[in-house]
C-alpha cells in the first residue's frame, strides 16, 4: 500500500467520512470536522501508522494534505 492510500484511509477514519477522496489541495477549510483537535488526532494517527515523529513546529504548519504527504515521504526516506 503506498503512502497516499494509507493517508486517505487515516483521513477517512479520523473524520468519520468514507466519501472523502485524496487530493493534494485538500485542507481544513474543505472538511467540516477538521478543527484543531481532530488535526492533532490525525497527526498522531499518522505518526503511529508510519512510525515517524513530527516536531511541534511542523505539526501546526501543514497547510494541506499535499504538504503532509511530502513531509511523510521526506521522513521515511531519511530513515
Amino acid at each position, binding site marked *: 500500500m503506498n503512502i497516499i492510500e494509507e493517508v486517505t484511509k487515516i483521513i477517512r477514519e479520523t473524520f468519520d467520512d468514507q466519501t472523502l477522496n485524496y487530493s493534494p489541495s485538500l485542507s481544513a477549510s474543505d472538511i467540516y470536522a477538521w478543527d*484543531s483537535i481532530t488535526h492533532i488526532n490525525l497527526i498522531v494517527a499518522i505518526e503511529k501508522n508510519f512510525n515517524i515523529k513530527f516536531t511541534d513546529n511542523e*505539526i*501546526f504548519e501543514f497547510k494541506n494534505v499535499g504538504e503532509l504527504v511530502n513531509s511523510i515521504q521526506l521522513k521515511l526516506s531519511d530513515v
Partner: protein
Amino acid sequence: MFDNISFWVAVFLLYLSSQVLSCSRHQITLISFISPFLFYFFFGIKFVFLSILTVFIIFFLSNGLNIFFFKLNKKYSLLLFLILILVFSKNFDFHIVGLSYFIIRFYDYIHFDKSHFLEANLKIKIYNHIHLYSYLFPLHAILAGPLLQYSKFVNYKNRKMSFLRFQKSIYIILVGLIFKYILGYYFSILIENFINNSLLKSSLALLYVFFDFAGYSLMAIGVGFLIGYELPANFNNPFFSKSLGEFFERWHISLSLMAKKHIFNPFQLFLIRSGYFTNIKLISSLSITTTFLAIAMWHQLSINFFLWGLFLGIALSVEQLFSFRQKIDFYFNGNSFKNFYSILLFMYTFIFISFSYYLLADELYNMIS
C-alpha cells in the same frame, strides 16, 4: 506615551525617513537606533540601559552556554535568562517597561524555528540583533501594543510609501484617538459618578476596557503604518460574536493567537501523546481551561484573576462539550445578521463576558480611577 508631543515629532521624522528608505529592513534598523533615545525621555536612563543590556545578553546566549561540564543549547539558555529576568523583577527593583508583553515576545523569539525562513534574512547575525531591539522593545507598542509574532517580523516585505497609505494611517490614528480619549473617557466618567448597580457597572467597565484598549491598539497600528513597522490587528468587532469562543477570536486577537500557539497547542499535543486521556472532548476542555488560567495569571497574580480565568475556561469548555459553535456556524452559515436570533446570541456573549468582569470589579475600578 501617545499623549506626549515628542513621541509624535519622532513619528513624523520616522515617517519622512520611511519615504526615503521605502519601509525596508533599513527602516527597522533606523527605528532600533532611534528608540533608545526616545525611551530615555519617557522611562529614564535605567530602562534604556536594561533594555540594551538584555539584547546584548541575548546576543551572547544565542550560541548556547557552557558552564563547566554543562552544555545548554540556545533555547534553554535563553529560557534560563527569561526566568532570571522574572525572578529579578519580582524581588529587586528591576524595571522593564511593559514586562508582561516583553515576556511573550521573548518567549516567541525563543521558540522561533529558523529552518523555515529565508536564508537572506538570517545571513548577518549582528544585523539581526540590532533588529531584535526593535522586536523586543517596539517603539510604538512597548506598553501594551499588539503582539507581533517573530516569524512575521523576520519575514516582512518592502512596501512602497504612498499617499493612500498615509491617509489610511491618519484615519486609523484618529479613530484610535476618538475611541480612547472621547468614548473611553465618557465611560470612565459614567462608571465613576453615575452608576451604582454593580452588574450594570461591570458591563460598562467592559465597554470602557474595549474603547480604551482598542483605541490604544488602533493608534499603535496607525503609527506602525506610518513609520513602516506594521503590527497585527487586535480587535475585530468583538461585540458581534455569537459565542464565547468566537468572542476570544475577535478580542485581543494577537494575545489569543500567541496563547493558542504557545499554550493551547503544545498542551493538547502533550495530553494526547501521553496516552492517559482518550476522550477528545475532555482533552480539549482541559486544554482550554489551562490556557485561560495561564492568560489570567499573566494579567495579574491574584485570586480574582484566577477565578476569572477559571470561570471563562469552564464556560468555553461547556460550549466546546456541546459543539455550540459548530452548531451555530452551521445554522447561520457564515451570515452574522441572518435574523433576530443573532442579536440574542450577541446579548448572550455580552452578558457572559460582563459577568466575568464582575469578578474583576476591584482591579477594574482601581484601573479606571
